């Protein structure tokens, strides 16, 4: 997913995050009805290792840096959307030549 798409379409980013989540959890995880404001781990079977795995996959797929101290902001879909969007904005303003990774 390109940074442009992320910036242009928050819905597209949400779709991408849920795709990554399904890729991590694999088993028949219903993500269509997830409430964006509730912790993801309360809505699907997800332990702490799954959460770390999810963060790593987000980092790989979206090429965003996610320091450990920020993990608390990522427990809901809403939190993820806000955090990643902000990260991309910071990335764009500080390092335009490397935005979105290589």
């Amino acid at each position, binding site marked *: 997913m390109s940074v442009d798409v992320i910036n242009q379409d928050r819905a597209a980013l949400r779709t991408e995050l849920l795709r990554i989540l399904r890729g*991590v*959890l*694999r*088993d028949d995880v219903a993500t269509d009805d997830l409430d964006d404001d509730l912790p993801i781990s309360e809505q699907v079977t997800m332990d702490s*290792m799954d959460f*770390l*795995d999810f963060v*790593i996959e987000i*980092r*790989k797929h979206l*090429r965003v*840096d*996610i320091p450990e101290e920020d993990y608390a902001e990522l427990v809901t879909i809403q939190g993820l959307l806000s955090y990643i969007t902000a990260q991309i904005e910071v990335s764009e303003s500080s390092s335009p030549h490397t935005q979105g*990774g*290589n």
Partner: protein
Amino acid sequence: MNSCDPIVITGIGLAAPNGCCRSEYRDALLKGRSGVVAFETRHLGSVPAGVCNFDEFRFQRPAMRRKGTRAGSIAIHCANEAVKDADLNWAMVPLDRVGICLGITEHGNVETENQIHELAQYNNDLGTWSNYHNSRTVANNPAGEVSINLGITGPHLTIGAACAAGNAGLIHGAQLLALGEIDVAIAGGVSESIRSFGIFASFQSQRALARHADPAKASRPFDQHRNGIVVSEGGGVFVLERLSDAKRRDARIYAEIAGYAMNSDASDLVNPLAERQVQCIQLALKRAGIGPHEVSYIGTHATGTDRGDATECESIQAVFGDRSTLAITNTKSLIGHTMGAAGSLEAIALISAFQDGLVHPTINLDEPDPRCNLPQLVTRRPREIGRFPFGIVNSFGMLGINSSVVLRRSQWSPF
């Protein structure tokens, strides 16, 4: 071994490149059907290799498979098949009295190579390194995955024994039973080695990697034109029990582990030593309480290397001579070298021969190397030998590790 209460095989599960259940594997062996195919591997391109085709999700949830390893997946497939085959009432089995002993040639190479490769794709960003890397690469991984999958709370051991590992797993399982540490052993060997380019590359550097225009003809033990090993993945897992327990539950008994031995060359990293192989075979026979003349079937280790095959033939000749009533064969010509599973898959072929009285052929033996021209080699087509009491399986490995297992045809529930 323990004449009071022998250790017997009551269940079999397998994954081989030419069959992932016993009937399919047996049929392929008897028909001389190779499971070796062209396989794309990182940096080397196409190489001949044995690839297993089984449904990974039959016994394992996709989420658990993602967190685990191919070796774990193969082990889970084989262990579940073996437990089913043993017809154990699993719900009634005290799972703290079940032990897992799986031999491996190596473990961790696949995951490490993949992670390093992936790291480079992400500009060496260590934040992309998997949090499951360690649980995938610890040496007990394959046995541990089986423990989690089947809920087994007894000991689980993964036994590193190079290419003698398939026998080593079986032997350690039998030993735990004989010691009374457990009541049921899930024992054998597995290998995921084809997923590691380094295994192929090292054999290539060693000038011991098989190459042939036709992959099915690349693995050619004993042949004058053999040029190395075909690396394969696979698994062979047994349910072992003490005879008294097996009889009590009226289990089908495939074979008795009549004797075994392991020893070390203590001489070289890669080159075998006939003198120690002879001692290993002789010790296994002695522990089985039989002489060489009582053995009707030898499942050889022969991997298709120049020195390895010739050395094993020298050892066999020294112990067994030219007796014409002996049949010698090999599964590697048909499935490649399944590394940690090799001894187990060889033993499964022997058990099938107990059942049908047939010795499967070694294929690709078009022009025997004079140093390997044993008169008892079964080639081209199966040989009928009828009922026979004893067979032996050799499995040797790097660093000079040798193993031989003597199996006796079941006397208690004959096929």
